[in-house]
């Protein structure tokens, strides 16, 4: 077996193990015949949503890292996830305040991804417009940090305003805190086509992204329509981030950790890296979700806590390495 075959074997085994644990681990007794069916059904939907969110975040990570030629980029670090969250909160508030009575037949689950999508798209577009072409890593990261802070502040402000209405306040808080524990078939049914179609279409841009690794001038000289490539990659990365945020909230670092962990085994070519990241993201977030159920805490641990505990140290290591190698300029 060559290295790529070994990588895929490990990925499939890891996903299989995470899926199995996801069914077995958790509150409730599976040996109880009366409960078993319900527990397995709930865990199956939770698993489906977790896998979709993990795939979407890892796929979005690969795309933005290719777009910015920067392995330190990810939807959470660039403020894309925060933008999607703000978009979701804004839609919830507007919907409940202005439109819900007139368009009551539309379920909130349907409009939430639309808000997340617009928020994520605007966030990435603002980042690109502010940093311009050929910006340094420091500029991109700092701008992402500032945008992320701004969006989170605005989201908090909206959350405070929404507290006036109990129902709305509860919905906004639940969405902002995130988590996959209460997600069911509706969420999965909405997210699945978004993630599946976007991932497939984004794969078609793999060669463009490979060429963009050499910079925009070289890519264009070899025939890449750079403007179109940037525009579409933003659309695909935003869509994947929005789908993930709509399912699980602002779960950080998946888009950073998974591509980074896989690249030494798959190499940097996107047509190989992207599908591996989709499977790896599903396995990683599922494993993180299982871990949230195993930690000895009094209450439920948010999914983002586990991904943050793994992702933040890795990000610091990458940052230190980039600084040491003089790649920050």
């Amino acid at each position, binding site marked *: 077996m060559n290295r790529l075959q070994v990588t895929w074997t490990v990925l499939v085994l890891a996903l299989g193990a995470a899926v199995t644990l996801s069914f077995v681990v958790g509150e409730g007794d599976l040996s109880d015949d009366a409960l078993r069916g319900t527990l397995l059904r709930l865990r199956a939907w939770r698993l489906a949503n977790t896998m979709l969110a993990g795939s979407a975040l890892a796929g979005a990570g690969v795309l933005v890292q290719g777009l910015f*030629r920067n392995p330190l980029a990810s939807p959470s670090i660039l403020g894309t996830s925060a933008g999607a969250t703000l978009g979701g909160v804004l839609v919830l508030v507007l919907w409940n305040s202005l439109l819900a009575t007139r368009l009551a037949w539309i379920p909130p689950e349907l409009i939430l991804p639309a808000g997340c999508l617009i928020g994520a798209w605007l966030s990435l577009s603002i980042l690109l417009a502010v940093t311009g072409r050929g910006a340094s890593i420091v500029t991109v990261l700092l701008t992402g940090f500032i945008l992320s802070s701004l969006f989170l502040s605005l989201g908090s402000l909206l959350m405070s305003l929404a507290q006036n209405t109990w129902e709305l306040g509860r919905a906004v808080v639940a969405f902002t805190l995130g988590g996959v524990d209460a997600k069911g078939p509706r969420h999965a049914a909405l997210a699945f086509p978004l993630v599946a179609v976007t991932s497939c279409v984004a*794969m*078609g841009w*793999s*060669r463009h992204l*490979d*060429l963009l*690794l*050499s*910079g925009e*001038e*070289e890519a*264009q*000289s*070899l*025939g*890449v*329509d*750079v403007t179109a490539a940037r525009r579409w990659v933003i659309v695909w990365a935003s869509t994947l981030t929005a789908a993930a945020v709509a399912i699980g909230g602002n779960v950080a670092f998946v888009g950073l950790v998974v591509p980074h962990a896989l690249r030494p085994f798959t*190499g*940097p*070519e996107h*047509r190989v890296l992207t599908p591996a990241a989709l499977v790896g993201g599903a396995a990683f977030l599922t494993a993180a979700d299982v871990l949230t159920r195993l930690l000895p805490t009094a209450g439920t641990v948010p999914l983002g806590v586990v991904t943050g505990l793994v992702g933040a140290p890795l990000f610091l290591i990458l940052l230190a390495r980039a600084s040491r190698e003089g*790649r920050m300029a």
Partner: protein
Amino acid sequence: MNAGLQVLGLRASYRRGPEVVRGVDLTAARGTITALLGPNGSGKSTLLKAIVGLVESQGRVSLDGEDLHGLSPRERAQRLAYVPQRSLLSAPLLVHAVVSQGRFPHRRGLADLGAEDRRIVDRALQDADIAHLACRPFTELSGGEQQRVLLARALATGADVLLMDEPTSAQDVRHALELHEILGRLRERGAAILVCLHDLSEVLAIADQAVLLECGSVHASGPAAEIVQDRHITPVYGVELIQGGGLGFRLTAGGEE
């Protein structure tokens, strides 16, 4: 007159800044090497980028009479191959993958290289004398080797007009001479080569024609031996040529040191 690349009244600037290229006319005929000379900041690199379409420009760029203005990047890349001074690629792509990128303008979708594509890539690797490096990561190569990989990628596009930006600037004398040989072979096959060069002795060694730029305009153009003369060089560079002076080199027999 041979067919080839023709540039008429080309003007270029960066993002509405001052003009860097100011109305340049030049011809790079097939089967010739044309050198672009000029001091630092004279607009050589910008002129190449404007011809390839990487910076905004006005004027006419045509190939065998066909106006290249309005062609998509893909169509342009099928006709003109550009070799930058150095690549920004910092990912460890294998040399074969980098050279295969030269087939991008001719391919759609995610399918693997076809038999014809593979043949062209293999030939480009051989022409640039880097077939032995095919399975090495690009980032582990020396500057000279990377330059030849970029040349191979340009050759793999199938374009027979080659625009090169100071290809020997990061190379030692031996690698520079090897590159001269490669360019000589491409010229014999009928390629039109337009190359930015700093070293005037290099111009005399490989170029048939020369275009001397000064502040974005053409100061003089013609046969290389006529352009590299005091009457042209002194007013532009502020130096005098030492007749019969300087060092000359050639590859030893068999290409070994």
